[in-house]
């Protein structure tokens, strides 16, 4: 009697392990398949001309140079706003915020901001930045919209990175007579830099791949020249993929997949570089 119970438990253990393990394997396999599939479909379209020429024949020929540059401009501009605001927001939550109800509400707001649908950010950007602020459809309006989206990522990453800096470092700086802001700027922030940079890169990489927030705030189907300032409209890689697939009959498969590969490769290369740099720095600093 007892023996069979043990046997049954062992069998259940084996079956459960197999099913759960297969599920985990399935997730990893899906990701691996995605990488290989995008690479295989995208590689034939890649060439030097593809990266350096303007699109021709509504995007069926030529390259993606203006979209590449447009995405870089918008991401750089987003970083200009989102990095200082996000890092200081994280500094507030970790170093200054009192342990009160109001802080709890701020944390909930940050978490909730991360879950607002990207198309809602697009509507907000249209109403607030394009129309109310009078920026028109432009790099600046799109960047401010993406800044709102990226902010919670950077705030959360900064707060977590700062929390991992041991209190001893702060005490030491304060004991030497440094003011609080000096302690934060010269001691705590540099010590937390690896975590913060990783968060910033992840946030900006996400912004680079977003389509919905830039639909109505400045992205255009085609431009022969490059954007000439913050007030200019722009082409962007993700928007280029979307418009090719949905509004160009007989879209060129090689070129569109090439665009997707460029986008995915640059986004994941940036994230991977940041993660590697972080773990290298972590190994050097030990506490």
């Amino acid at each position, binding site marked *: 009697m007892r023996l069979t119970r043990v046997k049954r*438990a062992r069998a*259940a*253990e084996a079956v*459960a*392990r197999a*099913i*759960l*393990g297969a*599920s*985990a394997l*399935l*997730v990893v396999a*899906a*990701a691996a398949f*995605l990488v290989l599939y995008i690479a295989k479909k995208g590689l034939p379209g890649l060439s030097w001309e593809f990266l350096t020429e303007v699109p021709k024949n509504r995007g069926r020929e030529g390259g993606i140079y203006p979209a590449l540059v447009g995405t870089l401009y918008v991401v750089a501009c987003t970083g200009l706003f989102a990095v200082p605001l996000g890092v200081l*927001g994280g*500094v*507030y*939550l970790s*170093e*200054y915020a009192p342990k009160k109800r109001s802080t709890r509400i*701020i944390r*909930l707001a940050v*978490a*909730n*901001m991360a*879950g607002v*649908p*990207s*198309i809602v*950010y697009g*509507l*907000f950007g249209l*109403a*607030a930045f394009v129309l109310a602020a009078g920026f028109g459809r432009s790099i600046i309006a799109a960047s401010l919209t993406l800044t*709102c989206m990226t*902010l919670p990522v950077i705030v959360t990453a900064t707060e977590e990175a*700062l*929390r991992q800096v041991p209190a001893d470092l*702060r005490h030491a700086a304060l004991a030497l*007579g*440094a*003011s*609080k*802001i000096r302690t934060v700027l010269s001691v705590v922030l540099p010590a937390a830099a690896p975590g913060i940079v990783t968060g910033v890169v992840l946030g900006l*990489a*996400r912004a680079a791949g977003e*389509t*919905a927030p830039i*639909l109505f705030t400045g992205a255009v189907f085609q431009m022969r020249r490059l954007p000439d300032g913050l007030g200019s409209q722009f082409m962007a890689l*993700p928007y280029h*993929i*979307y418009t090719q*697939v949905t509004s160009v009959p007989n879209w060129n498969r090689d070129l*569109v*997949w090439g665009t997707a590969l460029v*986008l995915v490769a640059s*986004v994941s290369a940036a*994230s991977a570089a940041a*993660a590697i740099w972080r773990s290298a720095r972590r190994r050097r600093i030990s506490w």
Partner: protein
Amino acid sequence: MTDTLRPSDSRSRGRTALSRAAETFAKGFITATGWLAIVVLAAIAAFLVWNSLRALGEAGLGRIVTGTDWYPTSSPGKFGAAPLIVGSLIVTLVALVVAVPVGLAAAVYLSEFAGRRLKEVSKAVIEFMAAIPSVVYGLVGVALVVPAVKRAFALDSGLTALSGGIVLGVMALPTIVSISEDALHAVPSSLRHASLALGNTRWQTTYKVTVPAASSGIFAAVMLGVGRAIGETMAVLMLTGNAAVMPRSLLESVRTMTGTIAAEMGEVVQGGTHYSVLFVVGLVLFAATFSINLAADLVLEKQRKRWGV
């Protein structure tokens, strides 16, 4: 951190007025950026409501939400958003059916059975999946899922609720796996050890002790997955065919709330009724995701407090 650090202690030690002023200014500025999240959320709500007012006055929220005819460009335009809401719900449901069983099983395996090496690899893999832009998921869906659905069910077009839902499910996987794994990981190992010491196997420990202890966090993970799926725009826009009629089966074309805003906002007259109705749809979407996310975050916070992390 704040309770161990007191800048006021150093202030009494004869700082110069200038540095004290700088300190006050810096503190004020940092506090202001800290409150920015609340300001942005409030601004989003305010702008959505403000731009919805015209449509709410002309048609009323009740008629927009329950109306079943969406002919925004006819005259007079008909703005019944019920097919869009149902479309969003159907696609989300399919996504859940795809993502929840696999996602939870994978999370349980990674947290309770897998070795450290596999854990690290899958963490990187899941981060990669989350980093792929939604428009690329849409493209993969167009190339693979749409033709597969068309062939499997002998349809005229593979642009269906099912195709959108499948891809959406894959997109929701990273959220569900990583958050439920965090929830399982947060369960103190003393609970596991106690159960093992009583003679339970690992699997018995998992389903009798660990999973119940982490259940609220797992629930929150599913909720956040729902929030992501309802709010997803580009992939569904490219995959569901976007017919704005009340769907009767999974194998028909549907149009979601997000897809409607994305497809129509480019062509409307700014300030007109149609423009305003799209903001009402945005407001419904915002209210839905806001409540789902808030509920999930409150559950997660409670769980964190419970295990004292």
